[in-house]
């Protein structure tokens, strides 16, 4: 059995850590284990988490401040929810559950997955789309490990397609909205990492599929 490449493992870990970073802040979140892991794996792919770490540090453990910020940016806020993390808001007229949600759902279905009924999440929520990249990343690792070239190729293609069609078209618009609306430095820093990583991963996948 072939050992997995560090790059492939790192990208899986990055996606997982970013999902953690986008989660609603908790005491555990403030303990920063996820951030330490993210910093380490980002380094492997040539990205840095220093700005994000500094932003979290600057909060001096004020969990409520970050919860207020998360709520106003991503859930409900005054004035209005500022940077809803749903593709449809940016790519289909501002409402939820537009064409991008259907597009994402069909990709999940193709992979034998659906959005869990208890997750209270829409298919085109940023964290759900990142989680689908985790799933595809695992499938990629498995295929590679088993030496299943056809499956490996298929998973890399699906990853590329999902990134190109479902994530990259709106992530910059979302990042921009976060930057414009944030009161704290944390979420703009996180949004910049998300965008930078997705672009990096797209380049990496392009390289891999060309091989």
């Amino acid at each position, binding site marked *: 059995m072939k050992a997995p490449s560090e790059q492939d493992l790192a990208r899986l870990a990055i996606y997982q850590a970013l999902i953690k970073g986008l989660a609603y802040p908790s005491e555990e979140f403030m303990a920063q284990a996820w951030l330490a892991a993210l910093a380490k794996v980002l380094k492997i792919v040539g990205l840095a988490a220093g700005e994000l770490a500094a932003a979290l540090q600057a909060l001096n453990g004020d969990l409520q401040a970050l919860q207020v910020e998360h709520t106003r940016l991503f859930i409900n806020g005054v*004035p*209005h929810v500022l940077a809803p993390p749903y593709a449809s808001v940016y790519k289909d007229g501002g409402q*939820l*559950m537009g064409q991008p949600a259907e597009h994402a759902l069909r990709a*999940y279905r193709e*992979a034998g*997955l659906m*959005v869990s009924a208890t997750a209270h999440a829409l298919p085109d929520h940023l964290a759900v789309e990142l989680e689908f990249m985790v799933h595809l990343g695992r499938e990629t690792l*498995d295929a590679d490990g*088993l030496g299943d070239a056809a499956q490996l190729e298929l998973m890399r293609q699906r990853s590329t397609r999902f990134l190109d069609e479902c994530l990259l078209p709106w992530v910059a618009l979302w990042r921009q909205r976060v930057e414009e609306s944030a009161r704290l430095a944390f979420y703009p820093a996180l949004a910049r990492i998300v965008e930078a990583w997705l672009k990096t991963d797209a380049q990496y996948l392009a390289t891999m599929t060309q091989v």
Partner: protein
Amino acid sequence: MSPKANTLSRRQFLKLGGAAAASTVVLGSGLQFLTPIAQAGPSLAEDGQLYGVCDVCSMGCAFIAHLSGGRVTHLTGNSADQTAEGHMCVKGYSGVRLLYDPDRLKYPMKRTNPQKGVGVDPGWVKISWDEAIDMAAAKFKEIRETLGPQAIVFVGRPQTWARHFTQSIGTPNHISHNNTCYSSHDVVWQAMVTGKGKSWTVDYEHSKYILAFGWDGPGKSKNHWGRAVNHALANGAKLVVFDPRLSITASKAHEWVPIKPGTDLAALLAMIHVIIYEDLYDHDFVNNYTTGFDELKEHVKDYTPEWAAPICEVPAETLARIAREYATTKPAVIAYHKRDAGGPNYTNSWHTSQCFVILDTLIGSLDHAGGHVLDRKPKLPDLPDVWKVPAYPKTAKGPRIDGLEQFPLLYPLNKGSFSTLAEGILSQSPYPVKAAFFWKHNLLAFPNPPRLVEALKTLDFIAVSDVLPTEIVQLADVVLPDNTFYESSGLVAREYHAMYPQTALREALPALHDTRGVSGVMLSILKKMGLGDYVPEGMSSKALMEAQLKALETTVEEMRANGGVWGKPIELKPKTEFGTPSKKIEFYATLLKDNGYPPLPTWKPARSETSGNYPFHLLIWRRPWERMTQTQNDPIVSGFSHENRATLNAQMARKLGIAEGDLVWVESTAGKIKLKAALIQGIRPDCVAVEHGFGHWSRALSIAYGRGANDGDLIPTHTVEQQLAEGDPAMSAMMEDVVVKVYKV
């Protein structure tokens, strides 16, 4: 996905040293949002269709939601709905955008900013449902035990579970919007015809003469009434509309009569006079099914068209001619519903409503084809039919903060008064109130919302269950996000549709966000408050629906096979006995007399008369594509009417130096609002008309915020004593009994 393969990769993962391995410490391997299709349990309905019943307004039109890839792409009217005929109105078709509104309340939240007020950011944070319910229950329990249950106010519709919730707590204060909407019709029908509230079924379709006073049903997009009136017109019916403003219904009428606001009562008394004294009434019907005709005849002796003409500014011959046409063109009907001349808009509206019932009775159209038809919707079991409800605390029947119990005919109908709530809270009369639970009632629907905000700021705790972050949500301590009607299931027995008594099926989409229906939330709060005896084990909205299906001897599958409706044809057999003490329709209403009110409609001028200071009557109207204050956050509808306006008669405006689009103040004794002027010919020179529903100040509504102004700011609140002094059994909020001045900014 192969579980075996995943195990393998996890093992590989752990073998790694360095950076990637470190990530496993926090990252785990499970998926949080996505799940294999086979293990999913209840799934998003992805492709296909669901049956639904619209709840944008109270009409309840059946529809089909078409799904593609898990989303509702569009709605179509359900062709099995005999009344709505397979169509919805513009509001109904637009309703799907409420479901997908990004501003929706998505999770329970609590405020972190203790300051409350207009423009104050609550500093919301997301919390769990457990925490939200604990918070509400703890606060309600504390207040119930220290000040008594009456110190908790519930504001919302008198729906089964909401009634159960308030009565279980033992508070008498379940406040609904009735006295701003239809309390006058309710009380009059109770006293004269039904012994309970008004009937909501009207057979416009088979009418040959439709006469309206301030009613704009088709103009408000009341779907099947608009359709039925159109059918009637196509069949040769005549439509006559009395209205100070050329409403949409008036614009489609054969005749528009621009009557002076608040004087419809005089016109109607004169019509009754003509029909009785010219012997145009239906003798058989009057002899067999009514009491008090002689008293009525004597009572209206002096209410001649000549007497009425100068009051309502309609020529006597016009009044007499229309009375004759109405009495001799059979079947005829007076069109009314809510917030019309007989709705609780004026201090004399209840007398106006009496005249509506009298006229339809005199010509024998009541409960006949072409007229108002008595309740014939299918009877569905309600909570007390399926569960032995424990006795409620006696305090649930005590004095109320809105004073409703002092109106003996209105009180048993279990509704409420919006016009007295603020004054009751502020004056702490008859007692202090310290907590409120608002369910889907927006502050902008009240008279003088700024006054209510002042009152609500004196409370210790406010819980709100709603779909959108409206104004009341800005004042909430805890937010309990509600499902939309697309995310609820149930059976809907639609009284408006009762000409064709069909019960319609509402199938639920999975909730989009972490929202819960208010019924279950209220039961959870009761349990946490230590009132578990009032929480029926195993009895929920779902269980109640099962009982209702059983009572109809049908199943969801059968209803689906029948196009989403259940219905057996019921022949329209006019009733021969009614719900009054005499079992007849009582022209001379003994219930009114026994409770100290005039039993016959008696002329009484409107409360507010124009003067040099306030030369205009305020008229309030509603756009066809807007549903009150609920639709202004719709991205498409907001493009149809960006803001509301002060609509003035063009000649009058020119005299005042006001041009189209000028900014003007509209000012009453209660407050003033700034609007752009719109000049038209079709309005009396002594009136200014303002569209309702605008003026949202909740910045959390990204589209509705800041558009136009709220007409409610012009409408005064009242004390209970002021309401009692009006001598009105329906406690009318008198929403249009208001005079204003208009001047350029």
